[in-house]
Each structure stands twice: as C-alpha cells, then as structure tokens.
C-alpha cells in the first residue's frame, strides 16, 4: 500500500538523519555543539513522552498517570542496580515491562471510568504510588532521598585524541542515540497502529464506546492494549532518564510535571497523529530552553499558557493548523461536526469553541 511504503521511507530517512545529527552538529558548531545536542536530546525525550501519551489518548483515555509509568521505569532501573549486580542495559527493557504490567493493572480497574473520573483516578493512583515508593524500606528504594543511578556513558578523556569538551559531547551523543532509538521505536508503533484496523477501533472507542461495542469492537481489549503500548514506551523512557539524570527520587520520578509535559505537547502538536507529538515536542523543547533560562522556578507556566491557548484557538494542534492552511477548508467542518463532538466529549479537542446546534437546518 502506498501509504505504508511512504511511512517506511520517511521513518528510515528520519532515523538516518538522527543518527548523523550529532556528528553534523559537531562539524558545524564545534564546542557549542554540546549544548545544541543537549537541546536536541530534550526534544527527543519530549517527543517520546508525547507520543506515548498520545497512544493512550487515542482510545479516549486522557490519563494523568503518565508520570507513574516513567517513574516506574526509572525506579526499576534504580532498584535493580541497587539490589543486584545486573548489567545496566538490562534495566531498560525491564523498566518498560514493569511499567506495562502496572498499566495493565491500572487499566483493568478503570475500564468503566470516563472523562474527569478517569483523570482523577489516574492522578490519585500516581500520588498513591509516589507515597508508597517513598515508604518502601530505604534499603530497597531509598526512601525520600531516592537512589543514585550510574550513567550509561562515561567517556574518558584521552589527551591527544580529543579535546576536553568532546567528553561531554560523546556522553550526550550516547544518550541522544539511545533516545533516537526509542523515538524511532515509538514512531514505528504509532504508524503500525495508525495503519491497521486498530486506528478505527481506537477512534471508534474514543468517539463513543457504546456505539463501538455495538459494532463489535472489544473495548476492554483495545483500551488495555493502548495502555500497555503507551506505558511500555513511557517506562523505557523513564529508565533511560534515570541514567541520564543520575538519580531517582519519589518527588522527581513521579512528578506531575512529567504528566503535564506529556499531555500539553501532543495537544499542542496535534492529537491522535504520529507527526503531531513530534512537531509539538520540537517547538516546545525550543521554547522551553528560553523559558527555563528566564524563569528558574515556574517555567512550566509557559506550558500552561500553551495548553490554554491550544484548547481555545487551536483544538487540532499544529498539525490541524498546517492542514487547514494547505486545504483551505473551514475550521472544524460544518455543523454536524460540532454536534458529533458532543457525544461523551470523547472526540478530544474538536469543537473547542462550542458545539453547533444539532437542530440546525439540513439540506
């Protein structure tokens, strides 16, 4: 099918670009490339975070528990390191697995929760998890202080073969490639979902779960599948982050900040797409740098503004905006689209400006 072939080509091209990007940056910017690479890495992290959250959102489950899964990944790595002598790399897939199992549990009990109730339940879940981890025996999970986690990459300075700044560069490059790999994996998963009958099932579920059931879609299985995919990616991400940041702690690993980033980015970029979260991440990571430098505490305010602005003015995100420009169509379709959006609110951010009167004149 033409669509799949195109997706494949683009993905491979993108992967190649990512592979060569660090080298390119070094050639172009020399010493300054270290910080550019760092910036690019942040964008990658945000992109994976966003894509993974979006995966779950596609079934209409707007979760506020994303930090629970990244945190679970991070803690898996940390505890594994602390308690066993297992090779570091083992912790990463294990982190993804633990997060996935956790999601299976959470997803199963929240199947009948929707909208705000689902959101609140997931938020409560995260808080309980955070508190529980903090209360685990310090020998196991480090209590409130947390656990230190060794870095994945520790390049050593060898005088004569390289310059001092290249130590930092090589370290950043290592993480960059790992995250790039994660992102490519996330893209592949997303594309596979979008190109298969899963897309229809997810869309049906998020539009109206009852109608979807009547058409033969198995809500439980689909929702849990989305949950597992989403959390697995989040767990992997959290695992790698633990190494990069050097430590995990209850407040840090399960911080609601992570969840905020995870949901604002795809909403801004364009929900339920593969490109949207990535686009959103790229733009926001760029802005975030500036924000962080201006406001050390409270830089998240920018994200709040972006979220509010997106809901009010850009319900379909950047992707929708771009699509509108190219197609030249009116915003959000005609009257029926507004009416559709009313059902359970499950069509996401369509029709933010209001629902058109369903009893309007019809041809």
């Amino acid at each position, binding site marked *: 099918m033409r669509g799949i072939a195109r997706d494949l080509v683009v993905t491979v091209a993108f992967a190649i670009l990512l592979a060569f990007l660090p080298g390119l940056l070094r050639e172009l910017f020399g010493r300054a490339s270290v910080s550019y690479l760092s910036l690019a890495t942040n964008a990658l992290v945000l992109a994976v975070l966003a894509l993974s959250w979006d995966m779950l959102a596609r079934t209409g489950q707007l979760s506020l528990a994303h930090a629970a899964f990244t945190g679970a990944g991070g803690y898996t790595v940390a505890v594994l390191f602390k308690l066993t002598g297992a090779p570091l790399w083992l912790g990463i897939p294990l982190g993804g697995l633990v997060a996935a199992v956790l999601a299976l549990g959470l997803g199963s009990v929240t199947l009948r929760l929707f909208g705000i109730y689902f959101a609140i339940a997931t938020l409560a879940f995260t808080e309980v998890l955070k508190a529980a981890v903090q209360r685990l025996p310090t020998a196991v999970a480090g209590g409130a202080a947390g656990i230190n986690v060794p870095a994945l990459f520790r390049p050593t300075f060898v005088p004569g073969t390289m310059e001092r700044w290249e130590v930092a560069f090589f370290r950043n490059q290592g993480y960059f490639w790992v995250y790039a790999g994660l992102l490519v994996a996330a893209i592949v998963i997303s594309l596979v979902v979008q190109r298969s*009958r899963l897309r*229809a*099932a997810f*869309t*049906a579920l998020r*539009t*109206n779960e*009852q*109608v*979807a*059931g*009547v*058409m*033969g*879609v*198995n*809500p439980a299985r689909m929702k849990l599948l989305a949950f597992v995919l989403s959390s697995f990616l989040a767990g992997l991400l959290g695992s790698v982050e633990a190494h990069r940041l050097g430590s995990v702690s209850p407040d840090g690993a399960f911080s609601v900040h992570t969840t905020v980033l995870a949901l604002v980015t795809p909403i801004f970029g364009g929900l*339920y797409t593969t490109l949207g979260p990535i686009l959103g991440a790229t733009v926001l990571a760029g802005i975030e740098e500036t924000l962080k430098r201006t406001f050390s505490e409270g830089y998240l305010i920018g994200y709040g503004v972006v979220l509010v602005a997106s809901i009010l003015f850009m319900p379909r995100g950047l992707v929708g905006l771009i699509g509108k420009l190219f197609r030249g169509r009116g915003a959000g*379709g*005609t009257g*029926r*689209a507004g009416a*559709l*959006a009313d*059902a359970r609110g499950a*069509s996401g951010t*369509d029709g933010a400006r209001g629902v058109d009167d*369903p*009893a309007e004149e*019809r*041809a």
Partner: protein
Amino acid sequence: MSTVLRVTKLSKSFGGLVAVKDVSFEAAQGEIFAIIGPNGAGKTTLLNLISGLLTPTAGTLELLGTDVTTMPTYRRCRLGLGRAFQVVQPFPEMTVAENVLVGAQFGSDGVSSAEARRRTDRALERTGLAPLRDQPVEDLNLLQEKRLEIARALATQPKVLLLDEVMAGLRPGEARQAVELVRSVRDEGITVVFIEHVMPVVRDLADRVLVMDHGAELARGTYADVTSDPRVVEAYLGVEDEDAQGGDEPVGVPSVDASSTADDAGGTTGGNA
C-alpha cells in the same frame, strides 16, 4: 420459521424508576417486528437492553438460540446482532467508507482485510452510499447519515437488525426510500426489530407490532389489530386512523432527549422520542 430473538420477561429498573417491566416477545427469522408506544414508554430502553448497553434487572434474552442476557455488547454483535442508533454517531475524521469498514472489520470474528473491504463495499451499495464513499462524514446530510448508520450495522453481518426511529426527521420522499431499504434488508433474510413513531411506516413494514406503555406491554398483534385497540388509541391520545399524517402526539412537548428533531412542514415526522 425459527425464532431468532427471544425476549422473556425482561425488566429494567433504575433505582426506584421502572423503565421496562416484564416484556416478552419473539421475533421470527425474516420478520419485521415493530415496537411502538407513546413518549417514555421504554422502547429505547428495551432496545438498549437487547443490544447489551444496559443490564436487565430481571428476565432473559436469547439470540439465535444462545443466552445473551449477560453477554457483552461486542460479543452480541459478533453473534449477529446489529443496531442502528437514533442519533447518528459517525466516527469523525474518517470517510464514509472508513466508518462502515469499522463494522466490517470488527462485526464478526476472524475477518480478513480483503473480506472486510468486500463487506464494506456491499453495505455501501445496498444503502446507496457508494458514490459518497470517500466523503468525510462531517459533510453528510441527515438522510445520508441515517443510511450510514444502517450501512455500518449491515457491515457487521447481522442476522437481527435493531433500528431506532430511523424515520425521524425524514421528509416523505426520504422516508419512502428508507422503507424500501428496510424491506430489502429483510428480503435478504435479516430479521428487523424497529422502534417507530411514524405510523404509516409501521403500517407498511411491520408484520407484527408490540405496543408499549409505561414500560410494559400494552397490546400486540398486526398493525390493524393494535390500531383498533381502544387502549392503544387512548394511550396515544388520539391516533385517529391510518391515514393521519404521523401520530398525533401532543405537539410542543419538549423532547426528553435532544435527539428527535424538528418537524418538517407537512412531513410525516409526527413524534418526539
């Protein structure tokens, strides 16, 4: 003719409110079975019980010989129960064909992509939507949307099709087309159970009619039987005779749900849900 749907003493209460009380009926294969009754009679609730969107407080349901009383909705669909909703809920950001494809892909177990596409095409043809297949669903008018509802349901390969007030909001010409469609569906061997307010349609289509009032059965029989039953007439507050345009429910009674729509001038749309 064999019984495809058997409803036995089905009841549903919401807290203290009894919505459906001890309703029983059987639909035979290839039959067109109508359920009528005044506002709030419990007709849609009954249909929701049959679909599996609600769990009954008492009674049993049998579909094609299998007890489905507690079976989840999607399994009933795979077994052969199709449903078209009163308020059409197409899946947004997908085309007409893609919407119908959902039904084709998930309506039965183990459907290959090719087979799903075939079923989709077939359903689109049957409902006359083939020329519109690549249209975004947001652009459809009311009649087209209703056809989409039916096409989606047909794509799930139902043996029993539940229709909920398909005629509401349609003009006479459109209603005639819808009636033809329902007839053709039955001619394929699909059993149709439908709720309707538009009496001429019931008269033209129904083999048997069940009248509900206040959640319970009021009368049953052929259209002629029930319309001449004084209790039915009284329940409806003045169904004059067959030739009346639509039911004469009190005009201006606000809709209980926002679904039923405005009358068309001089049309056959008589009632509100």
